[in-house]
């Protein structure tokens, strides 16, 4: 069944008839990032208006691979269960050279996490679920067919001009969040540089519907017999939809390649028969770029508007959701007077760090997949040749290093005898508690003191959690230590940890969460 792209209703906004009261947050763009941003802010009690020039979810599967971290965020936003239920859960990736498997990876080799490593789900479903949640949330005013035509800002206000089917109006707001995608009209209007690298390569992308018993795995081929000399990627999605990416080379003519009579024979070679229906096809090039700064006074860039990566590694949509994760509690704290505006600079610093890691990883994958002539191709080919005879080279084969949250650089107190995976700067690891509940959902909304094998001091402005020790908690948070106290930020990032600390030390670190002083 092809997806039914229903238009969402347009309602004439109040601003057409009378000036609207000043808003706290105007979000431009109702893609996954803008919608998630509004829901995240609403969780902190912050109201927002979302403006979108369109009235439908996006066409084609687009961002399909949602990482464990994104699923944890979706869970918090109220759509985790729907995404899990509908999506195709997977954790194994297989990489082939010609007809031989040269490498495979298991992204979540251990149990004891609520969310799987990855779920494949077409972007249009994710947007639909997010819109449903937004429409249920009274703090969010979602306006379709409201196109932003210009923005402006002074020291203490930002302004938006909006065009609707019924005419134009203007809004005043504390902050504008530019969630307007890779081609961001706001970024262009502000004349901001978008520095980075364009890869001279084209990929065909197609969604096909077919009955098949393909396993829920990611398959990547270098130089397969069905597509000589190039690369190919296959993902399974729900509704019997398969996503195929085929490398075409820089010389390929995108308009020619998109024609069904050209696409279908290519797909037939991949799947070995003609019993499929072509649902969506596109040709893309890719770039790795980012803004120099994501925060421009009262205009803040989030997601693809701030940074773009090549698709291999699923670091676009997932990276954007990590921006949402990082910005939500900080912006809420600033708007609610709990923190100074300087805290927003730590969004800038931390997410630039995250974007750089994503860009570095996706650039490396892209270079391995589409090597330049000379030494680049020589080493790529020899890694592939070595992978057949030396185990070490298998993991060097780079068909994408899949999205995982970065560990933010921080000077937060650490006790290095505790496990590396839960060091300050890292997202807290999930675990099932003795009560049967999951740890991560308990860590939302406000800072948390997680006391293990000891009791947490009674401090104000922080939630204390003293779960009974389990094997997973001990393994992930204590290692050989008998006890520890972890201070965790509202975005579930570990701020500090001790095996022995005074109440005053803990209180001091709690205060720095709101100043951002530990951020490097």
């Amino acid at each position: 069944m092809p997806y039914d792209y229903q238009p969402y209703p347009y309602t004439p906004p109040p601003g057409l008839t009378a000036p609207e009261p000043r808003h706290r947050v105007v979000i431009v763009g109702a893609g996954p990032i803008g919608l998630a941003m509004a829901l995240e802010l609403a969780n902190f009690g912050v109201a927002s208006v979302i403006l979108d020039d369109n009235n439908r979810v996006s066409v084609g599967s687009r961002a399909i691979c949602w990482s464990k971290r994104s699923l944890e965020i979706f869970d918090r936003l109220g759509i985790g269960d729907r995404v899990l239920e509908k999506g195709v859960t997977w954790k194994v990736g297989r990489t082939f050279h010609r007809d031989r498997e040269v490498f495979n990876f298991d992204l979540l080799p251990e149990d004891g996490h609520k969310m799987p490593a990855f779920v494949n789900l077409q972007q249009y479903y994710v947007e639909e679920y997010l819109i449903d949640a937004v429409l249920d949330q009274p703090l969010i005013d979602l306006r379709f067919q409201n196109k932003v035509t210009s923005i402006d800002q002074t020291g203490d206000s930002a302004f938006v001009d909006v065009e609707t089917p019924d005419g134009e109006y203007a809004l005043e707001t504390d902050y504008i969040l530019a969630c307007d995608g890779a081609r961001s009209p706001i970024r262009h209007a502000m004349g901001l540089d978008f520095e980075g690298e364009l890869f001279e390569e084209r990929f065909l992308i197609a969604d096909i519907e077919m009955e098949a018993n393909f396993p829920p795995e990611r398959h990547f081929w270098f130089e397969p017999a069905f597509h000589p000399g190039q690369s190919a990627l296959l993902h399974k999605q729900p509704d019997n939809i398969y996503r195929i990416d085929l490398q075409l080379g820089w010389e390929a003519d995108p308009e020619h390649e998109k024609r069904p009579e050209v696409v279908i024979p290519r797909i037939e070679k991949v799947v070995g028969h003609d019993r499929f229906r072509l649902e969506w096809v596109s040709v893309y090039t890719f770039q790795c770029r980012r803004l120099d700064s994501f925060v421009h006074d009262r205009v803040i860039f989030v997601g693809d508007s701030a940074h773009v990566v090549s698709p291999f590694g699923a670091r676009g949509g997932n990276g954007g959701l990590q921006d949402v994760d990082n910005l939500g509690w900080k912006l809420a704290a600033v708007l609610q007077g709990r923190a100074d505006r300087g805290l927003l600079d730590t969004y800038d610093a931390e997410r630039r760090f995250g974007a750089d890691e994503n860009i570095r990883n996706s650039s490396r994958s892209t270079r391995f997949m589409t090597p330049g002539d000379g030494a680049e191709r020589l080493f790529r080919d020899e890694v592939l040749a070595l992978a057949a005879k030396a185990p070490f080279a298998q993991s060097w084969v780079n068909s994408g290093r899949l999205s995982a949250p970065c560990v933010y650089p921080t000077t937060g107190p650490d006790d290095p005898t505790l496990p590396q995976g839960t060091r300050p700067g890292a997202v807290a690891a999930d675990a099932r508690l003795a009560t049967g509940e999951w740890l991560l959902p308990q860590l939302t909304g406000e800072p948390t003191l997680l006391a293990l094998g000891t009791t947490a001091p009674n401090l104000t402005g922080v939630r204390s959690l003293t779960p009974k020790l389990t094997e997973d908690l001990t393994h992930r948070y204590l290692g050989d230590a008998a006890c520890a106290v972890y201070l965790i930020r509202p975005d579930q990032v570990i701020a500090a940890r001790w095996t022995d600390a005074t109440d005053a030390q803990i209180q001091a670190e709690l205060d720095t969460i709101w100043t951002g002083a530990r951020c490097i």
Partner: protein
Amino acid sequence: MHLISTPNLARHDDFYEALLAAHRSCTADESAALNAQLVLILANHIGDLDVLTEALDLAKRGPD
């Protein structure tokens, strides 16, 4: 750990001969492929990014 750039391989003449022998009868492309594999194999064996970085720097540097 630092890169050793002072004498460290006692039977270097034997290795040099073996290296040339491995390349004998190779075309230029085959030699390049052989060298590339050697670099990758040895890099994995050394297993220390700092040492490898020093080796890259030494190879790129002009004569003192």
